[in-house]
């Protein structure tokens, strides 16, 4: 329970910062201010300034927006395509659709995700949108497998048999009976995948394949200031800790939600 609360607080701090950045940030980050560069934390700049004299707090707020937007859309793509695929595979267990879906999943799983991301950006150019697509593709098999596994065990239940006796088709049963009973599973996995998405976005930006300047991104903030850590440590600490705390918060939340929503774990946790 404590983990869930701590996670929720951490996540809401960063989500709040991202939302706030939509309407207001302390400084304009397009403006360079060489006179103010590489300053440590102070009242006018609570998190200091970078090598161009830009306010780090504003950069982190805008970076949170990028990270959260990329991860959210990527998880959305993964769920939006993976869940129907998993449901279909389970409904047609052992059939050719099941084979195609599951072997397709294996194919995606077999490729290192960074390799595919490089491939996509090499073909279509580096941008936040392409990072979203790359991360999204890797979320599809995760959700497809999860849903197929959960659905297969539900398909053996008596209430599914009763629905079949009532003449309901596979698609209707999948939507009416299977999917609602998988929501707990999806919420928990969605939270975990969201945190992995943030990590992946940071990783892609770090190697220059994510959001392009001037859109700020936590991964690129780390990469840009790589050579200056020895003279201004906060340049590494601020974006690094932002990534760490967000991911930690989401993972704590995911575990907490699992304990809360899964009756088997809930009993053991007490």
């Amino acid at each position, binding site marked *: 329970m404590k983990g869930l609360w701590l996670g929720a607080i951490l996540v809401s701090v960063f989500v709040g910062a991202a939302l706030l950045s939509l309407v207001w940030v302390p400084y304009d980050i397009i403006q360079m201010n060489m006179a103010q560069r590489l300053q440590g934390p102070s009242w006018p700049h609570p998190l200091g300034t970078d090598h161009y004299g830009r306010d780090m707090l504003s950069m982190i707020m805008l970076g949170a927006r990028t990270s959260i937007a990329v991860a959210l859309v990527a998880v959305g793509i993964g769920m939006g395509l993976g869940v129907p695929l998993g449901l279909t595979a389970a409904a047609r267990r052992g059939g050719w659709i099941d084979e195609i879906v599951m072997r397709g999943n294996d194919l995606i799983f077999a490729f290192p995700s960074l390799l595919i991301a490089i491939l996509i950006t090499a073909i279509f150019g580096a941008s936040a949108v392409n990072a979203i697509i790359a991360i999204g593709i890797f979320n599809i098999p995760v959700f497809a497998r999860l849903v197929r596994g959960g659905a297969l065990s539900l398909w053996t*239940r*008596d*209430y599914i*048999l*009763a*629905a*079949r*006796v*009532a*003449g*309901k088709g596979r698609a209707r049963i999948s939507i*009416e*009976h299977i999917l*609602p*009973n998988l929501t707990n599973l999806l919420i928990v996995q969605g939270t975990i995948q969201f945190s992995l998405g943030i990590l992946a976005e940071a990783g892609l930006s770090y190697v220059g394949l994510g959001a392009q300047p001037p859109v700020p991104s936590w991964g690129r903030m780390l990469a840009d200031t790589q050579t200056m850590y020895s003279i201004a440590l906060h340049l590494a600490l601020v974006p690094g800790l932002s990534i760490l705390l967000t991911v930690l918060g989401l993972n704590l939340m995911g575990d907490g939600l699992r304990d809360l929503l899964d009756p088997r774990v809930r009993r053991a946790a*007490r």
Partner: protein
Amino acid sequence: MSLLQIEGLHMAIHGQPILRDVSLSLARGEVLGIIGESGSGKSMTAFSVMRLLPRGAGCLGAVRLDGRDLLQLPERQMNNIRGRMVGMIFQEPMTALNPLKTIGDQVAETVRLHEGLSRRAAWDRARAALARAELPEESFPLTRYPHELSGGQRQRVVIAMAIACRPALLIADEPTTALDVTTQAEILNLLRRLVQEEGCGLMLISHDLAVVASMADRIAIMRAGEVVEQGPTAEILRQMQHPYSRALRAASAHAPERGAVATGETLLNCDGVVRDYALPRGLLAAPQHFRAVDGVSFTIKRGESLGLVGESGCGKSTLTRAILGLEPLQAGRIEISGQPINANGHVDPAIRKHMQVVFQDPYGSFNPRHRVERLICEPFHLWDDPPVGAARDKAIADALEAVGLSVADRHKFPHEFSGGQRQRIAIARALITRPDLIILDEAVSALDVSVRAQVLGLLADLQGRLGLTYLFISHDLSVVRSITDRVLVMKAGKIVEEGETRAVFDAPAHPYTAQLIKAAPRLPEGVGG
């Protein structure tokens, strides 16, 4: 001095009282039967003796084994008592065994743990224990795994584990509930023999009065955490002083009132039905089949109640699914009201409309996220113009009232009901479209005896009022006997005997039927009033 002496045992979990002032005693070589319905605290009494209670449980009173109070012992010493002094036999042999270890290893583990024997010596002891549990090494090598054994053989392994250290006390918690009748009779004989030969005490916990009556020297009847009555078996069965004991016995022997049989035209006709399952094939081997249903033919007349009896794996569930149009057939045909049930693809809703089904498990039969009204209206999907508005409300109200629930229950979720009430909801769901045939697939097997008696009464009443036809599938002979007109006995995919229920039970023609009837535990004739 008695072996086990439970004195004024109180037990509460998180402050909620579970056991109240339970006092029992058990001598060596004696069988104490504990009877009660689910939630009566009979298993908790056993777990209190073993000190295997859930977290948050607290005990008062005393549990003396050979004069030593187990409740006062530190956990380390208690570990020595468990398995060595007290052996436990569980209900479900599949989950009580580790699937990754051989049966020899599992039995030997108990011995090694408690007596520190070498591996070789422990295996010798395991061999002996399995032999005592009637699994001789010649036919059942110690290197077998649990999945290579049948349910009854697995239960023998569990018994071998329990008796390996020659404990003074054996606790058997519903040891035969998961088993077929013939296997149940064998396991009960084994337990009886072990008590006689080894002189240990046996605490036998069961919901089945007949099982306990045939085994126990003394009986204790529990309800809501209290022992309501206890004494020597013969005396208890003769007197049954407590009203609850009387109710329990009446329910155990209950046969619902049934009206005259209206035999109309043929409703369901099965003709030479065959269902094969493909077995996993080897690389170059020819495809192999397992024939689950082998040329089954029978008919059900409108208004009739037909029983289908058989042990697990005999093909009765497959046959049920085939009748429901959920399994493709390899040969033969199934017709309802003269129309064929096309099992190879989509079954026409117009044909499905004729039948509904009630399943065994009252907990798995409903989508936990739907309300009662939505659950019981599901079969309306078969209709071209399902009722809406007031007509739907009336259909829901009629169905709920027909099964003895109130109209207000329509807004509740299934978890708000008890097992018996849920089975009533399942019957309401089956009734709502007014089908001709209702298939009852072990529909009362998971219920307590008193609830079972009520549900059977309800079924008999509904049949009389609505002119329903039942196909009643069960492994429980007493249930089939009480509610059916005709009975089919199924073995290994074939119908081996068919006839009037009374005639079949009184004078079985097939040896298998005779074996089944003989194995079924029965209450002694003419006890009590």
